[in-house]
């Protein structure tokens, strides 16, 4: 194990979503999930930490070059009396502007232990269109 792997994890406080991203229509607080975004020739892959989110609670919306990730947290289990609190519970939302054309039909998503893996394959047939300027 290298020294880097030995690093201890630090607490990062959850960040509430900015109100200028649009008011959430659902009640309750929404947080910004932490993500990794990787790209290779075939696809853009997005990993997001969504603890407490059921696989069915994730909503992914791509339109006009904007990807919106929304996740609901099942708060039913939080009905027990809270006696000590160190973290807050709420849904997650984050928007990304996509620089590449994405083949929306081929987007795939997978949840594993509260971690979302979202694969956004790049569109091959959607090459940049050249507009001829008529004189």
């Amino acid at each position, binding site marked *: 194990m290298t020294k880097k*792997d*030995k*690093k*201890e*994890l*630090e*607490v*990062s406080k959850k960040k509430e979503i900015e109100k200028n991203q649009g008011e959430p229509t659902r009640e309750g607080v929404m947080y910004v999930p*932490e*993500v*990794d*975004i*990787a*790209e*290779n*020739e075939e696809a*853009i*892959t997005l*990993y997001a*930490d*969504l*603890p*407490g*989110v*059921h*696989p069915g609670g994730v909503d992914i919306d791509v339109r006009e070059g904007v990807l919106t990730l929304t996740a609901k947290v099942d708060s039913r289990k*939080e009905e*027990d*009396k*809270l*006696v*000590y*609190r*160190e*973290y*807050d*519970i709420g849904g997650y939302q984050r928007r990304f502007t996509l620089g590449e054309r994405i083949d929306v039909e081929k987007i795939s998503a997978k*949840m*594993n*232990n*509260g*971690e979302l893996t979202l694969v956004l394959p790049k569109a091959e047939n959607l090459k940049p269109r050249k507009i001829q300027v008529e004189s």
Partner: protein
Amino acid sequence: MALIRWFDDSDNLSQMERHMEQMQRDMGSLWSFFRPFSSTAQVGVFPPMNIYDDGESYIARAELPGVDPNDIDITITGDTLNIRGKREIKQLSGASSYHRRERKSGEFKRAFNLPDKVDSSKVSAGCKHGILEIRLPRAEESKQRKIEIKTS
């Protein structure tokens, strides 16, 4: 000074809070860490934990997204509950480049003193959707018991 356990049964919550405020005044900021009801406690230890009480058990939960349950190690030594583990974020191979890297990998450990009303032999744990849940059942003798008043 009356002896107060913060983990006590808290049907008289407000009373307990009053006691804690009193103690806070007595002891300075030392107790601010244990003030559960005002706002989110600030701890510098990963992972942050919430503790619930369903009457039968205390339930401790922690958000550990992407952590393999096999990488979490929970032990009880005496009256100390230890949680340790690691989170590994897989490195991408090939020609991938990262645009964002916000998630971190590393090790973590936390320790809690169990209240003596917990039956430590019956502690159980599970992990679902990235939430670790440790169930700490109350010892039989600390469950609420109704005392019949006999009339003759």
